[in-house]
């Protein structure tokens, strides 16, 4: 956003507070994140452990969300909305349905 100002691409609604975002992150950071993601993928494939897999999914999605999608630089309200709305309710849906699926007695 800060750069947006500098280059004259301001658009009314947000320009008054866009300055809080700090500098554009360097390219290098992204490629480090990329490397970590690759390593994690390999680890997930090699280790057939459910907990490791779930942890791997969690860490990978955090890296993508946090660095690539710039949640790091976003307002806290947005971060919480994404975490609760996009993930929380879905996990809760699965959590409750897990008991259901595990307990049903097949009849044929």
């Amino acid at each position: 956003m800060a750069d947006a100002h500098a280059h004259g691409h301001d658009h009314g609604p947000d320009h008054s507070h866009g300055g809080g975002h700090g500098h554009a992150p360097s390219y290098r950071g992204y490629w480090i994140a990329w490397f970590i993601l690759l390593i994690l993928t390999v680890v997930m494939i090699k280790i057939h452990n459910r907990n490791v897999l779930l942890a791997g999914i969690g860490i990978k999605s955090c890296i993508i969300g946090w660095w690539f999608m710039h949640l790091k630089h976003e307002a806290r309200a947005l971060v919480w909305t994404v975490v609760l709305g996009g993930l929380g309710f879905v996990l809760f849906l699965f959590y409750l349905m897990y008991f259901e699926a595990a307990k049903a007695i097949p009849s044929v």
Partner: protein
Amino acid sequence: MALTHSHGTDAAHGHDHPSGFWSKYIFSFDHKVIGVQYLILACIMGLIGAGLSVWFRTQLAWPGKAGMSPENYVMAVTMHGTIMIFFVVSLSLSSGLGNFCIPLQIGARDMAYPLLNMLSFWTIVPGAAIMVASFFVEGGGAAGGWTSYPPLSALPKAAPGSGTGQTLWLLAMAIFVVSFTLGGLNYVATILNLRARGMTLMRMPITIWTYFISAVLGLLSFPALTAAAIMLLLDRHGGTSFFLPSKLILSGQLQTNTGGTPLLFQHLFWFLGHPEVYILVLPAVGIAFDVLAANARRPVMGYKASVFALWAIAFLGMIVWGHHMFISGMNPYLGKYFSISTLIITAPFALLGVCLLGTLWRARIRFNTPMLFALGLISAVGTGGIGGLFLATATADLHFHDTYFVVGHFHLMIGVTSLMGTFAGIYYWFPKMFGRTMNETLGKLHFVGTMVGTFVVFTVQHFQGMGGMTRRYYEYVNEYVKPAAALNPLVTIFAFIAFGSQLIFLVNFFWSMFAGAKASKNPWEATTLEWTAESPAGHGNWNEPPVVRGDPYRYGEGADGKGWKLQTDA
């Protein structure tokens, strides 16, 4: 696609002053025109949906006299439910009045993305057309209940409407979800980003809060229905078995499906279905707050508490869907959880109700039509809400589930409450829409008819439900239910009254549009922002951007003795 580029440099200013008929009234970008378009579409769909209910009510009261076959009956109840929920209440309350009043009440020129707004209206039109067209295909419209639980809705042979009719139903619903999602994105972005200077979040009228919350709920819950619809379509036409278990026998034939379960659909459906109830009810309550404050000449009681209660209802509403499934074969322990969590919602809901009621404390009431509807809404939301206590308790639900108690309860909530809110809103904002007022005499007649009709119908249905009268029965052939079913003619007569008074409304609405008395800028002496715009407001709403200097409900504190102050006044 369009979302990817943020701010156009190819500014097309041509529509700023639309002159032609088409660009002004049909493919308009103006949120007010789009809002009215939604309202008119909802009126048309409402005639169809309510007409269906009159048809099957006649059958219930005098079996065999309505020229209705059992096939017609299951189709009529299904389509009545679907049309009323998605194409009447959602369209008129959420989309229609929402589009109309959000920019006006927050001081924006238009929605954040007017093109998207127009597109979402023109997406819903074919959806509505497809829904209506499904009556005329072979086998008739969908007949699996508005919940369309598989396997009934997944196997074309299970019911007459489960053929093409059900496919068109799913298609229309998918279109509806797309349109509603686009609209919801617009609502959220507009309310978050385009508030006029000084319009902080806690200075927004409660109507805006409720629209915001219902848009958020819609965006979070409708995708679950989309997923369920995709899977159901695949089950119907791709031969998959997401919801179809192994070895079903239908009309003597062994089916080839393997491995699915219908409970999955029910979970996904109600993950949407329960928030959907709040999507429909909350904006009505919000409008009632505005109307009550303006016509009781006092600020709403407990503004902050109400906002808190709304958020609490929204959050809890997302995690209690299973109370629609107590006896669906769900794990009994989940039944206990859903009972307890659902009953927690009584707290914020009671808070909301008490704030509505308290707004009348030490009031100076003006009994105009919108106010009468708002007062009726208080009673409806209270009466309907109390029925919820029974249904949320799993134990009591053993008796009440799928009886007319449920029917009475949810009609009071998402039928009467939301329509009372819608009517209050339409009568209230009509001057802003057309620069004219609706006829008060007809309006009051409409109110009496609606009030007496609906309250008798749905209260009596509660008692019929206590008698164990089951839903979606073409005729009551069981012995035990005879005393309860004996009340059906009474219910039907009052349903006629309720339906007839809606015709009065339609006449009033369209007549006043052209011939109503001219209205001034602020006919109700209300304080919120929309009353600073012209009546009717032009494209762009204001010439000068309004600056907000106070709370939305500034009644009883006027310095010059007039007893009220606009939100823009110092």
